[in-house]
């Protein structure tokens, strides 16, 4: 039954893809078909995976072989189901969003866009669903290919360039992944996941596989120092695509290989993840905070969030490695929880950005401002998203980070010195990240939505059409559900985490509270927190309401002023100005960033010289090697030609000399 629903979802994606391709000429129809198809398919996917997760019934299926050396099998276990859930969720929301968004942005190619979009989502789902590494790779690559075309959908120079960067980096990453999978294959003898799990692999090889896959998936996920492609890509990709890309399927691969296949066998793997995660988180958010371009800001923030997810998984892997299932599950829970959270709030933020771009037609925050008044729904959604991403309780971002803090504290009690020593440091870094993130998104909201409008478009902006609002609102609901509903949601994610180790899932919630497996360490109840916060809001209002008789003096001057000057738009606290203190504070980090950029251009200039050299190499072969051979032959021919000098007496002499030589050798 579950399987049928899942297959229905797959079928719907395919149908939507090809129908929209066929209808490309009538692009509006194509857009609707595609969006509705995607939505229906995503709902089917959601239903099937929720059944899997809730009822605990993974399923598997095998299809006819296309390729002689690999079985085409699909297996939706907890982890896959969780991933599919996340993907489907975002897919459904973006589907609604695209109904109107695409009409304007993709225009006449909406059919093709629909086709690629469906293929992209489907390949993501199949990649996480297949239980054969070869098909995982195939779908992974199809996913990359489809997303490449989606990234360059606008087809301007910038988009093409960013598409190039995206695809090139993704392909390089895939190569590393292929490498690691091939090594697994060599030991397992087939591409089946089940064989991978049971393969006898020496520890050194395991390390190699892990490092390769970590690099590969890490690049794809955008961790520091491989994050540079993210802002480039996101800045020109359509917002819906950026939202879909925020599902971070790469993490799935890392978990699959690192934890599922290799059993997280040594503790330093986890520590590596943890370290890279922490650095990514801090550096990512630092970069984000000084960014003027909204898309790029969100991209850097993705790096940050990937870092946080990795930290969770790192802790989880340490837990598994040292055979502390509780720590492992908890860390993994934090990571996975943050993954779904990130997908939801980052998706929301991208959709909001999409909406803003839809009206303002720029991504430069300096040209926005004051949009909250003109686009109230969008502003509200962005606010919720910003709060969530800044880990403000009781929203979802806070919950997952809270779990992460708890797991880090737990790891701090660990016997391994490095882990023990570093865990608090990572916790501090996480805190720093949270702080800067809050500041960063305050800035973002403030600059974009508050204050005066700083451009013509911004002044003329109005609210986006209903489908787009609906899409955003769905995600707002998602944030609330994941935040306030944490006591309900967390155990299921805990199931997913524990299923990776085949342990019983630990207790992480009771009633309205969640806790890191033991109530003594800490407890959190987001619903109660929410009530409390609501209370905090309500109480002042109540006070004001009770004291309403007493009129306090209100300044009614409508135009603001500053130090004696009348207000102008240029005076507003702009994005650049806002981040000035950070720039000063973290000067070295930014310095690295600028020098890196310069190095790029320097390398490019060397590259041109190299190209010139290579150009000459071609003629080297032809002129020097073969040319001299040919010339030499002709020259030799001309020398030899001299023997035919035309004198008949010489000719006779030749005969005689030959005869004499022969006679001498014969008689001798």
């Amino acid at each position, binding site marked *: 039954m579950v399987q049928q629903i899942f297959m229905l979802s797959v079928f719907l994606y395919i149908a939507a893809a090809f129908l929209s391709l066929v209808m490309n000429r009538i692009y509006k129809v194509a857009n609707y078909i595609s969006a509705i198809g995607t939505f229906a398919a995503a709902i089917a996917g959601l239903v099937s995976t929720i059944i899997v997760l809730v009822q605990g019934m993974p399923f598997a299926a095998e299809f006819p072989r296309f390729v002689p050396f690999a079985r085409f099998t699909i297996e939706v276990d907890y982890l896959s189901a969780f991933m599919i859930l996340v993907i489907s969720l975002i897919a459904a929301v973006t589907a609604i969003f695209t109904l109107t968004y695409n009409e304007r942005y993709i225009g006449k190619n909406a059919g093709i866009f629909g086709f690629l979009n469906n293929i992209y989502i489907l390949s993501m789902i199949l990649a996480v669903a297949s239980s054969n590494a070869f098909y995982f790779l195939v779908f992974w690559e199809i996913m990359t290919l489809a997303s490449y075309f989606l990234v360059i959908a606008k087809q301007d120079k910038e988009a093409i360039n960013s598409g190039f960067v995206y695809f090139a980096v993704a392909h390089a990453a895939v190569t590393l992944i292929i490498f690691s999978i091939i090594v697994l294959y060599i030991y397992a003898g087939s591409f089946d996941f089940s064989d991978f799990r049971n393969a006898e692999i020496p520890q050194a090889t395991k390390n190699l596989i892990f490092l390769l896959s970590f690099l590969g998936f890490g690049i794809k996920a955008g961790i520091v120092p491989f994050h540079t492609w993210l802002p480039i890509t996101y800045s020109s990709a359509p917002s819906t695509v950026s939202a879909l890309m925020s599902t971070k399927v790469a993490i799935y691969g890392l978990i699959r290989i690192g934890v599922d296949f290799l059993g997280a066998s040594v503790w330093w793997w986890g520590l590596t993840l943890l370290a890279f995660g922490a650095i990514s988180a801090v550096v990512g958010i630092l970069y984000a905070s000084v960014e003027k371009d909204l898309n790029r800001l969100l991209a850097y923030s993705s790096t940050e969030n990937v870092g946080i997810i990795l930290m969770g998984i790192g802790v989880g892997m340490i837990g598994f490695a040292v055979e502390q299932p509780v720590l492992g599950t908890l860390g993994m829970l934090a990571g996975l929880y943050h993954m779904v959270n990130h997908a939801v709030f980052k998706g929301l933020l991208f959709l909001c950005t999409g909406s803003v771009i839809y009206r303002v037609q720029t991504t430069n925050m300096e040209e926005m401002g004051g949009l909250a008044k003109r686009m109230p729904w969008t502003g509200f959604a962005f606010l919720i998203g910003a709060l969530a991403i800044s880990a403000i309780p009781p929203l979802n971002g806070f919950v997952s980070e809270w779990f992460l803090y708890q797991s880090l504290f737990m790891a701090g009690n660990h016997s391994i010195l490095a882990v023990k020593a570093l865990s608090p440091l990572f916790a501090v870094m996480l805190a720093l990240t949270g702080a800067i993130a809050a500041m960063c998104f305050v800035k973002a909201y403030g600059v974009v939505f508050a204050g005066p409008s700083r451009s013509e478009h911004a002044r003329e902006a109005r609210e986006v059409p209903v489908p787009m609002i609906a899409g955003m609102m769905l995600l707002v609901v998602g944030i609330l559900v994941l935040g306030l509903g944490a006591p309900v949601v967390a155990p299921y994610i805990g199931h997913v985490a524990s299923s990776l180790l085949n342990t019983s899932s630990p207790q992480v919630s009771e009633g309205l509270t969640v806790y890191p497996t033991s109530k003594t360490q800490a407890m959190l109840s987001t619903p109660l927190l929410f009530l409390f916060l609501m209370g905090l809001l309500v109480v002042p209002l109540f006070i004001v309401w009770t004291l309403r008789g007493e009129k306090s003096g209100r300044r009614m001057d409508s135009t603001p002023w500053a130090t004696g000057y009348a207000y102008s738009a240029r005076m507003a606290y702009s994005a650049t100005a806002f981040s000035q203190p950070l720039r000063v504070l973290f000067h070295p980090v930014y310095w690295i960033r600028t020098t890196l950029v310069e190095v790029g251009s320097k390398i490019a200039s060397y590259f041109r010289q190299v190209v010139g050299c290579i150009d000459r190499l071609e003629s080297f072969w032809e002129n020097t090697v073969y040319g001299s051979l040919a010339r030499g032959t002709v020259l030799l021919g001309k020398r030899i030609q001299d023997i*035919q*000098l*035309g*004198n*008949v*007496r010489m000719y*006779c*002499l030749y005969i*005689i000399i030959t005869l004499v030589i022969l006679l001498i050798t014969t008689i001798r």
Partner: protein
Amino acid sequence: MSGTAVVNFLAVLLILTSMLVIETRRLRLAAYMYSLQSLVLVLIFLSLAIFMHAEPLYIWSFTALITKVFLVPWLIIRTLKKIGDQEGESAFKTSTTVLFAVFLVALSFAVANSFQTYAVVKVKIAMGVSIALFLLGLLCILTKKNALKQIFGYCLMENGSHLTLALLAYNAPETVEIGILTDAIFAVVIMLVIAGRLFKSFGTLDTDNYTLLKG
């Protein structure tokens, strides 16, 4: 005087005459010298025929008398009337050529010595001379630039090989001799015709000038 001695004496005479053919600057004179040499050759044939009781050699000497003593010189002289009989320069001085000739003669005798195991060779000196004659002919072709001189050279070679044939294969069928002789005559005829044409075309008989075709 035994038969061998006669033959050997005549053979030495051949060397002398061939040197005269080579070194005579006037071609008409050279033609006469060649005629003389051929006469000596005929005499050798005759003496061989007598002393060795080789009947076929009578016919040989007869045909040789007609062709070599009379026909060939006549043909050459006939051609000389058209093209003048003065030889141009040669590649070496006379003294050098003679030195070469001496060397070649010595070589020939050395070679002829190696034939001693063969019963047929009763007249070693004659054998050596026949080879020497052949080589002198070659020498003439190599050192003389004049086309007619080269024809003489060819004739000398031909005489030499004829003598060798007579010494070694005197009892071979007549057809052989006739065939070879016919070839020789025709070769000379053709060469003379071509030499005539060459003179008409190039205005000289110096073969070193005939180098239009090379490479």
